[in-house]
């Protein structure tokens, strides 16, 4: 098994990690950097639990090789500090077991940055990428809308 040393820009710091070329970004940030906020779910791009941000856009980190993230800015849920969307999730009870929450928050966070005036259709299109096993969709919708409306 050949290991490679690569530099990843994660949450504003340059981190050196040893990975296989075949390792996903999800594996690298959880297994090598201890950033366990991004959750492994389907590992197949279907559930969105592993969503992080890459250069400002939402990215399913199970669908990206760690090597593909070299030279890009990766933000995980640990990199968000006191954002309005995190507060809104608390205020709107937008989670139950919480497993899907980091992924949803990272997706919502990008949506708010990229489309601060998102209409219902755009919100739905973006949030369809994530699944909540506890079906807290109504509360999640309320949370993201509360932030968008304030903008």
């Amino acid at each position, binding site marked *: 098994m050949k290991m490679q040393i690569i530099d990843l820009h994660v949450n504003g710091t340059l981190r050196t990690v040893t990975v296989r070329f*075949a390792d996903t970004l999800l594996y690298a940030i959880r297994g090598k950097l201890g950033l366990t906020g991004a959750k492994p779910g389907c590992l197949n791009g279907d559930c*969105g639990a592993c969503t992080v941000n890459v250069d400002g856009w*939402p990215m*399913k980190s199970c669908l*990206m090789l760690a090597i593909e993230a070299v030279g890009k800015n990766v933000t995980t849920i640990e990199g968000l500090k006191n954002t309005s969307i995190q507060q809104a999730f608390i205020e709107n009870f937008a989670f139950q077991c919480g497993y899907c929450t980091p992924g949803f928050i990272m997706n919502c966070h990008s949506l708010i940055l990229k489309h601060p005036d998102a209409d219902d259709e755009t919100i739905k*299109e973006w949030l369809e990428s994530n699944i909540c096993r506890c079906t807290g969709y109504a509360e999640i919708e309320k949370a993201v809308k509360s932030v968008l409306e304030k903008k």
Partner: protein
Amino acid sequence: MLPFDFDYYKPTKLNEAVALYQSLDKKEKKPMFISGGTELITLGRINLAYTEAVIDLKEITECKVMKFEGDHLVYGSTLTLTKIEETNLFPLLTKTASEVADHTSRGKITLGGNICAQIFYRETVLPFLLADSQVMIVGSEGMKVVPINDIFKEQLQLKNGEFLVQLATDKRFIEAPYISIKRRQQWDTGYPLITVAALKMGEEVRVALSGLCPFPFRSKKLEDSLNNREWPINDRVDAALAELPRPILNDVEGSSDYRLFVLRNLLHDVLEGLDASF
């Protein structure tokens, strides 16, 4: 987790990528071109894809372009579907692309990756089939430009070591009236059952389909039947249904009878939507 290891190359020039493929192929490394790479990961993890050498095409300049060149709109093969949608230069393509996978995944899935994918659902090829686009392909014999309708037969007919660089589409088709409908069996999410894309050029309707057969297609015969204005609309749709390629998919997403039932209605919707039902 991918159960095999590979080397990873990221060429920035077309000829570099071609040469890499040839040398790796000679060394029996089973080289694979990737652009978004989502199929390498999702199929690799269940042993349906294998390689010992990945050649990532994302950084090749020609593969990243998105611009008008004279009367043609040129798209590079490694543009992500999100980028294409956000720029929205070709509304039918935007609409059709927005029906692939989900929004987040479309930030990774690329145009070339979707067109050349192994899965049945390769919706982004439909607008290019309708618009008689030209494809630019590079390989060991150099560069060639071919009409997509000559080289897309169930899939893009690429020789070993060739890859898709760009697609060029005449403006006339980009401005034409269009319709794109995706029908799913259940709810608004989940796998598509059938996707239809259609363009109206003058009085003629062009139709391309994905999710009906194990491959996307556009059929001239089907279009001729649909466009036969001498017949009443029901007969035109019936005749079109008799011209379908085979096999019709029959799987958990829908039986073949159900798919044909849905298609009949879809063809009516297309003709009505494009004001061509009389």
